[in-house]
């Protein structure tokens, strides 16, 4: 798996490898929060359609590199059981100029949320487990 991982996301590894072409780096991380819509959260599960999610994430990275004036886009999404403060997704963009990095990073996370077959189930402190309502794929019937 290139974009999906079952273990904690290693930011240090992701950030390694200096890139002499690029002048700007932008790392977005999504983290499990301790509250959602007023309810206290104790953890989160992420599941995926592995083949489709890998392909969709790869497409987002390559599209980002085409649409924006960036050098590279990498995305890692974690699956499995996450604790509070754990990182669920990391998006790293490198570019020569910072404007493009901000635009590409923002586009990548928005697109990920709309296109990638991954599901989040929140576990509340009160014991309830709730799948959050998501975004319907364009291909839905």
């Amino acid at each position, binding site marked *: 798996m290139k974009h999906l991982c079952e273990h904690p996301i290693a930011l240090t590894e992701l950030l390694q490898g200096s890139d002499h072409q690029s002048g700007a780096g932008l790392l977005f991380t999504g983290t499990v929060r301790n509250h959602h819509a007023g309810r206290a959260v104790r953890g989160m599960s992420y599941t995926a359609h592995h083949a489709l999610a890998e392909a969709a994430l790869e497409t987002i990275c390559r599209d980002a590199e085409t649409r924006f004036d960036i050098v590279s886009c990498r995305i890692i999404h974690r699956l499995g059981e996450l604790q509070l403060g754990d990182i669920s997704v990391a998006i790293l963009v490198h570019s020569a100029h910072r404007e493009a990095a901000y635009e590409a990073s923002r586009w990548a996370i928005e697109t990920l949320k709309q296109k990638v077959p991954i599901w989040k189930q929140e576990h509340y402190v009160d014991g309830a487990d709730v799948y959050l309502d998501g975004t319907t794929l364009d291909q*839905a019937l």
Partner: protein
Amino acid sequence: MKLLLAPYGPLIPVLGTAPVCVDTPARNATELLDWLHAQYPGLAPWRQRIACAVGDTLLSADATLAEGAEVALIPPVSGG
């Protein structure tokens, strides 16, 4: 026709975990979803919100289904 369904995310509590074996008169993806909605009233919140996939290909509405195919049922996504 016999199919093996693989529900994902919030569809698992409604349909069960994969493989869900069904015997359906549906011949394509649209008919399969219509048939499922009739069989499982619990799917009502996902009317016109489920995509179907075989392998790593999302199916178009009129994609025909083969006997014994494994069909993934993809509800609205919530990654990130």
